[in-house]
């Protein structure tokens, strides 16, 4: 079993730092998602593990082995990229056998392991086809089978689902989750810009932005108690409101709100984060009154945009029987335990 460790890894192209001293550990058998917008350095981090970029500083370890200076073919990784990169001149079975032949696996073993990998990804019936004869989803399965056939300790997935349409994507997500249950020893580094993929699949998520790590934790931790505004807005939806910390909560635009201020120092400014689906309509604790700016019907829910004291608050509510009209005055509320304070000064008390 082997995990991955980034030890102060920096990557720069011509003086332009694209990854800034990343420290991150992927435990053996863990699925770690690198989540971030484009240009956040997440793909660079993955390519540093694969060996396609040479860090200007720091070390990359796979298991206990320092692989920083090793060429890609000596690293023992499996990798799947967005465009699959199946070899177009080889049949599916030859694509899957490629890694085994390249690594000089015993000849007698190869057919069995190819069949096993194709079986695992549900592609056994397509062994004799060429990649161009397969759909996008099927090509992706072959790419995964090809990476798994060499039984890597570490699997690198670089936006593997982003070339698929939405329906196929959710199916493949379930497939990937199943594959990981069948191969619990494989550590997976999963690069994506899609929060749903990260939340669904990952044991932990590393949130990346501007060439660095912003936050890292389990999906639940990041969703319920994000540490930064960036995490709050990138992982799930969030209302971010400027508040002043008070003894028993916070003050927003002159309204006193009750919530657990944790270690935030009273008097300091902070950002209040509350998820749109945790807001309720009508009077209640922590009421926020305002006027309706926009109403969107989303099938099972209504999304209301409410202007409260010059700030636009989003609320996702179960489908409403009576839809409020634009300009109506409404009141929203939230439970004290559903709000988090971000970026406040910390008190010792």
């Amino acid at each position, binding site marked *: 079993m082997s995990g991955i460790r980034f030890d102060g890894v920096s990557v720069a192209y011509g003086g332009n730092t694209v990854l800034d001293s990343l420290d991150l550990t992927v435990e053996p058998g863990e699925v770690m998602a690198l989540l971030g917008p484009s240009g956040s350095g997440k793909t660079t981090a993955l390519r540093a593990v*694969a*060996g*396609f970029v040479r860090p200007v500083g720091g070390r990359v370890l796979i298991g206990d082995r320092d692989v920083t200076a090793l*060429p*890609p*073919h*000596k*690293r*023992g*990784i*499996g*990798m799947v*990229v967005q*465009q699959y*990169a*199946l*070899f*177009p*001149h080889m049949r599916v079975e030859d694509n899957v056998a*490629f*890694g085994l032949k*390249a*690594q000089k696996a015993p000849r007698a073993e190869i057919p069995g392991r190819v069949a096993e990998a194709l079986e695992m990804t549900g592609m056994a019936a397509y062994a004799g086809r*060429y990649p*161009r004869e397969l759909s996008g989803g099927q090509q992706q399965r072959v790419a995964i089978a*090809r*990476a798994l056939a*060499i039984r890597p300790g570490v699997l*690198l997935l670089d936006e593997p689902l982003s070339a698929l349409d939405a329906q196929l994507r959710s199916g493949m997500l379930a497939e990937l989750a199943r594959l990981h249950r069948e191969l619990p020893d494989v550590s997976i580094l999963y690069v994506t810009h899609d929060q749903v993929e990260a939340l669904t699949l990952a044991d932990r998520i590393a949130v990346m932005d501007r060439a660095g790590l912003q936050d890292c934790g389990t999906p639940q931790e990041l969703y319920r108690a994000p540490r930064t505004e960036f995490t709050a807005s990138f992982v799930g939806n969030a209302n971010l409101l400027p508040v002043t910390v008070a003894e028993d909560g916070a003050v927003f635009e002159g309204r006193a709100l009750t919530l657990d201020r944790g270690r935030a120092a009273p008097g300091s400014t902070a950002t209040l984060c509350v998820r749109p689906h945790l807001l309720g309509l009508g009077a209640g604790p922590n009421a926020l009154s305002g006027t309706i700016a926009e109403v969107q019907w989303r099938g099972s829910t209504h999304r209301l945009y409410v202007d409260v004291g010059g700030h636009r608050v989003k609320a996702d509510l179960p489908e409403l029987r009576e839809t409020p009209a634009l300009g109506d005055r409404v009141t929203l509320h939230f439970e004290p335990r559903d709000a988090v304070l971000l970026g406040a000064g910390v008190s010792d008390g």
Partner: protein
Amino acid sequence: MLVHSKSGRWAAWGLFGLLFLPLFALPLLVVVAASFSTHWSGAFPSGPTTENYAAAVRGESLQALTTSLVTAVAASLLALAVGTWAALAAATLKKRGKRLMDALFMLPVAVPSVVVGLAVLVAFSRPPVLLNGTGSIVVLAHTVLVTAFAHQSVSAAIVRLDPAYEQAAASLGARPAYVLWRVELPLLLPSLTAAAGLCFALSMGELSATMMLYPPDWMPLPVRIFTATDRGSLFTGSAVAVVLMAATLLVLLAVSRVRTRASYR
């Protein structure tokens, strides 16, 4: 098509015929007509006769055809090997190095081929490498002349080759040599065969450098055509020219069939 109306399309075809036929087709048709003639003094040649062809496919002419084929095959294979190697090596260089390589390989094309012929003659007329008087000096000169085209065509194909294939192969544990042999070269095969065909055709038709170099026992077909017409045997020369065209086209046709079988995408 840019022209949509029916009459416009007919006019375009007419104009194309008017320009194309006299410029490209007519000279070739004249050579074909001359190859079947005994003499040509009026508007049309007299004949027809197949005697010119009988002369064109035996004796010296047959030997010249064999010489040309051997030279062209050898030169294009050498050019392909050297050009591909250089193109693969240049792909790893930085921009300036790449430009330098390109310029270096284009040099023999930019320089008049007579000069290339003379240079090769002077360079290899003395020990330690004495090639003058042998067939290999012709092969060498042809290789120098056509390598540029092999290099250009393979370079362009390498630029288009998605690096994801190489990276996928490396991530699966394949050494660089294995990646080259099993992934990159097969994917480049269509371009390699196209380059080989181009080199072959160019070598088959090369005259000016060859004239500077050819030994008496290694006379390629274009030289044979030149000497025949120079001596006044215009119709025999025409027949030999048609044989040269046909041989070249046949080989190119065979190469293009390999190409269609080799293109995967």
